[in-house]
């Protein structure tokens, strides 16, 4: 069922796909930089970038230059990293939990982040020294730890882990609701809930740097375990009998995905569908073996998110549609096509 293996053979095919994805990503980021509410001529766009890189010194409108470099470029790059990261987490979790519906928030991360965020903003925990992002991050990790304990370490089987994740999500969502409804400032509560819907509006270059580091490290770790992940194809016992230290691998990979997801959620809120759908698309294109699947997820996730962000910015004039809405609107039809084809091919 792998499209690539049906049409092109082996490494040549994958190489072509890699080049194609990089090109597509570059084009998408270019589009993300060039498209926006402010009408900026392409030459200004181009020179804004070269100016800031120090290659040229063309005099430009200050606002245009700033919009291109400080907002659109950083935003497009962060979007691509978040898309890549979420898709990577989704793929890992779907393999480890042997569940095609697993996605990055299945371990309660998003719910925990919401609790952390409201604790900081509404309850004032941290007394102003802690930012909303740090609070969200701490909350996400707390939820993850809760899941780990509830699923009895990584010894718990896939089903038990999923149930623990459901329990954690329910618990932390309830905590968030409790804090929001008893504590008051309606404005603050609304702000936090809106933030949690997901948005790239607040990201600048510092977020890019953080995201780059975290995504690269996580990718390196996941690629290192790509073969081990293949061994999980037939379950934990099968992997163990093939010599994989199952418990250790699960701990490391769960922790890695948790950290990556927590970082992304604390930066841009929870953006759904990407982590669920992109791995399936990637599998459809390059097959289930992880040495190909993981890079494919990264590439497709990045392109998908950048394009979704562009759509969210231009589809309604003067407004930004929440990115989660766009990813769902695009994701669902895609998913349906995949499912339909998969049924037919079998």
């Amino acid at each position: 069922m792998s499209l690539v293996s049906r049409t092109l053979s082996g490494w040549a095919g994958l190489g072509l796909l890699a080049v194609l994805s990089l090109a597509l990503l570059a084009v998408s980021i270019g589009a993300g930089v060039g498209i926006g509410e402010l009408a900026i001529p392409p030459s200004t766009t181009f020179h804004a970038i070269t100016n800031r890189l120090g290659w040229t010194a063309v005099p430009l409108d200050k606002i245009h230059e700033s919009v291109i470099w400080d907002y659109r470029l950083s935003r497009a790059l962060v979007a691509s990293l978040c898309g890549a990261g979420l898709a990577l987490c989704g793929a890992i979790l779907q393999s480890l939990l042997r569940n095609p519906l697993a996605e990055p928030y299945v371990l309660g991360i998003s719910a925990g982040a919401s609790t952390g965020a409201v604790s900081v903003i509404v309850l004032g925990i941290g007394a102003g020294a802690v930012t909303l992002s740090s609070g969200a991050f701490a909350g996400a990790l707390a939820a993850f730890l809760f899941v780990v304990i509830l699923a009895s370490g990584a010894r718990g089987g896939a089903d038990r882990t999923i149930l623990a994740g459901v329990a954690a999500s329910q618990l932390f969502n309830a905590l968030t609701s409790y804090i929001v409804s008893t504590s008051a400032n309606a404005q603050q509560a609304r702000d936090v809930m809106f933030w949690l819907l997901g948005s790239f509006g607040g990201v600048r270059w510092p977020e890019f740097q953080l995201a780059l580091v975290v995504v690269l490290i996580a990718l390196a770790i996941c690629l290192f375990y790509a073969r081990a992940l293949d061994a999980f194809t037939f379950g934990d016992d099968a992997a163990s009998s093939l010599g994989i230290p199952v418990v250790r691998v699960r701990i490391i990979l769960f922790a890695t995905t948790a950290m990556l997801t927590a970082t992304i959620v604390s930066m841009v809120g929870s953006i759904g569908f990407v982590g669920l759908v992109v791995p399936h698309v990637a599998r459809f294109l390059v097959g289930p073996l992880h040495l190909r699947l993981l890079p494919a997820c990264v590439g497709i996730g990045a392109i998908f998110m950048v394009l979704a962000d562009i759509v969210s910015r231009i589809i309604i004039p003067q407004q930004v549609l929440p990115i989660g809405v766009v990813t769902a609107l695009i994701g669902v039809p895609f998913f349906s096509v995949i499912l339909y084809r998969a049924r037919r091919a079998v």
Partner: protein
Amino acid sequence: MPHSAVARWSRLAATGLILASGLTAGAAFAGPTSYPLTLSNCGVDITFSKAPERAMALGQNSAEIMLLLGLEDRVAGTAFWPSKVLPELAAANEEVKLLTVEIPTLEAVLAERPDFVAAQLLNLLGPNSTIATREDFANLDIPSYLSPGVCATSDNVADVHGSRASLWNMDLLYQEIDELAQIFDVSDRGQELIASFKAREAAIRERVAGSDGDPSFVFWFSSPSPADDAYLGGKNGASGFIADLLGGHNAITTEAEWPTVSWEGIVAANPTVLVIADLDRNRWDLDKPAAKKAFLTSDPVVSQIDAVKNGHIAVMDGQAMNPTIRTIYGAEQLVDQLVGFGLIK
């Protein structure tokens, strides 16, 4: 005088004004602004070399203050309007470009090439805003101004627990009017506006001074449905202020700004007057006063509370329940109705 001293002087004068309640204009610092003007706003120093000509108002309250100060020809655009503009400002508002009634995008704001941005709320301008932070505008040499009411560093604002420990009052609004007036070099108009608000405040207090009793109020903002808990104005918020102004108190004792209370709780509070909000938006059926009244008079339990039985149901603009300039308008709306109820002589 050195610039910081000018700022200090003007603040001192404003404080003096506020302390001397009941006094009008008099020795107010209403002279022309001396530029460059430096102000400290929410812990950030902002400097103006001249009066802004293309200001951006993010938030209805900030926009309405500017319009009240007659600055419509110097406002390049406004955004975020939860309700309709004050009728008296409608004509002036027509001349100002409306970006959107929702939260605008940064690019839309920058497209107007503003030279000054004033924001009402932190989600419009702040560290967690999806539009921009103050640094973003500072990097483009655009001074930004946050309503003093939402500064995290101010003492008079909702404390860290998201509730108000002490009753809100108009002081922060007066500070905002005064500072904005200075920025635009219309201090005299600013002082006039402040004085007029103070006079109105005083007039209401005087009006109710003759009456006895300490009426209790419940301010009902809206509910998703009659069965749901109602969104009320909290004890120390703008609603509490209105109640105090009218010589009474808010029957709700929780300090949360927007508590949700069940009808059982409202019945138990047994207020003297039930104030129902009139909202411009159309989210819930109960947004409109007619629907609220219908529920109040038809529900078997609620219709038995004193306020409903005695017909002490007053209608007020919902926007007044937000701590803005509309609050005083809301209080005025209620005075006549209270006279009608015989609660004010």
